[in-house]
């Protein structure tokens, strides 16, 4: 899959430099640096509690690291709230589903397109042409996405009523709807069966292929990681112990000792 890419892997788009993050006495991340290249799929792996989710939370502004800096397209992301970071072009999914439970699947995905709408509440209240046109366009985009993800049957169902696997899919849909340049996916396939995982991989690869979205993905299933990622970062106890291509990481002795050799979950 590396040959003939419509969006060949480019230079660093996202860089973490010497990040340290602690909660009280717990060091979640210690002096970690890594870069994500434009248009690549980068996997973050490591045992539970290694600091993977914390890393994504630092990138999208939910946490702010005590030490170090993160930059996106050359701009520092210090002390910027998640909504501004979303505006800059980084969106995400969450490990423990963070959907809008009482809203329908379509409405959840529509919220994902928040940044593509700019009519104000008065234009919306009075249904002025601007509000109507942009709403129509966005709905069309969402319908396309619903077809792409093959979830037309649940389009109007409140998300809270869906089984876990489908909720994960809707959350991916909401993230895709943002059309962000970088997507942070926190265990998008957790709890899924082989079939469902294969489907999710297909969606992720297709989006990466066709529109060049850069993905940072946390995943436990080594098969999946080796299959879809261009590079892999390995975290252990908050430290980066390896960073490279899937093959390099797989054969790294430190990784085998610390992680692959040890049964997890």
């Amino acid at each position: 899959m590396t040959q003939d890419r419509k969006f060949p892997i480019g230079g660093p788009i996202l860089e973490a430099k010497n990040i340290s993050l602690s909660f009280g006495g717990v060091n979640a991340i210690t002096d970690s640096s890594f870069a994500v290249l434009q248009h690549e799929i980068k996997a973050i792996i490591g045992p539970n509690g290694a600091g993977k989710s914390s890393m994504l939370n630092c990138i999208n502004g939910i946490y702010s690291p005590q030490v170090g800096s993160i930059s996106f397209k050359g701009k520092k992301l210090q002390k910027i709230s998640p909504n501004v970071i979303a505006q800059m072009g980084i969106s995400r999914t969450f490990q423990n589903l963070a959907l809008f439970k009482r809203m329908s699947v379509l409405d959840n995905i529509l919220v994902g397109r928040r940044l593509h709408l700019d009519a104000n509440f008065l234009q919306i209240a009075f249904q002025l042409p601007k509000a109507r046109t942009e709403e129509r366009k966005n709905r069309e985009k969402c319908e396309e996405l619903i077809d792409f993800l093959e979830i037309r049957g649940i389009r109007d169902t409140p998300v809270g009523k869906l089984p876990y696997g489908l909720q994960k899919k809707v959350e991916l849909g909401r993230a895709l709807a943002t059309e962000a340049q970088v997507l942070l996916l926190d265990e998008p396939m957790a709890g899924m069966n082989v079939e469902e995982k294969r489907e999710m991989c297909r969606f992720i690869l297709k989006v990466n292929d066709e529109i060049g979205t850069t993905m940072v993905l946390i995943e436990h299933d080594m098969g999946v990681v080796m299959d879809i990622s261009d590079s892999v970062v390995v975290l252990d106890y908050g430290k980066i112990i390896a960073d490279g291509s899937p093959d390099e990481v797989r054969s790294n002795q430190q990784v085998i000792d610390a992680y692959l050799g040890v049964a997890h979950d």
Partner: protein
Amino acid sequence: MTTKASILGYGKTDITNFVIMMVIAFAFVPMVVQTDYWYSSILIPWLCLSLAAIGQQIVMGFAGQLALGAAGFMAAGAFACFNFILRVPDIPFFVALILSGLVAAAFGVLFGLPSLRVRGIYLMVATLASQFFIVWMIDKFGWFKNYDTSGIITAQDIVIFGKPFTSPLEMYLVIVVVVTVLTILAINMARGSTGRNWMAVRDMDIAAESMGISLLRTKLQAFAISAFYCGVAGALFAFTYLKSLEPVAFDIKLSFKILFMVILGGLGTINGAFIGAAFILLFPVLLNSVGNNVFHGAIDATIISSIEQVVFGVLIIVFMIYEPLGMARLWDNIKRRSRKAN
């Protein structure tokens, strides 16, 4: 399946329903209802409080902010309207009404600020402050009451294009126009991205933020718009129902009443505001008439009023636990079932 033709959810049935409702409101009711009692004591307060309930619905049902203090914003709107009409010569009534809503909206933003820090019951207590502050301010500074010492100020007559609207039917028509317009605007907002942003903040604020929604702006916007609706409702309530301006009319009890309307009517639905308001207003009337007509006054009035409180209390608990979508949802279910039966 819903098709793409029903953009914003306005389908044929929505439009039919709207036309039917307009015919009822502007033709059927004025033709059939001839007694002033029905206008002054039922329709007028119902519509005014429904409007306030839409305000409460916006901040609580849609944006998920447990705010309590609708009556405070109503007081702000009522006294603002009184002062605009008093101090601005020849100000058109509808202009005064909109400005009153804006004054209330400004208070809404101010007292919505705690929502950026606290939530749930703490926010409820914090927003209660608005209730006390606004009423205190009106009492404290004589200017707001035009230095009236009697405590009760008579509201000015509503005059539109030189024509006074003073009979119950005329006032009812003024209110129906305002309520219709504001309800349509509220539905448009609720169905559009404004409402989706509110609901996203309500359901999962951290995810909403990650999708690019500013919590600060969205919450304060909900507080402002909510207070606007309450302010306009308060002005109408004072000018058409109370026909006077007295801060005590906007006490904490009224705030609770509006809160209950929204809970019983159904959180997060515009219909629910109207259904809840009707229930809270009509149930005591019904209970009284049952007491008088069935038991011929054998049941003491205090017992009837305690029955009322108990029923409200039980219903609120039942709805909170079993049907957060309230009576609006029950109504939908009945409609769906009857459609199936046909």
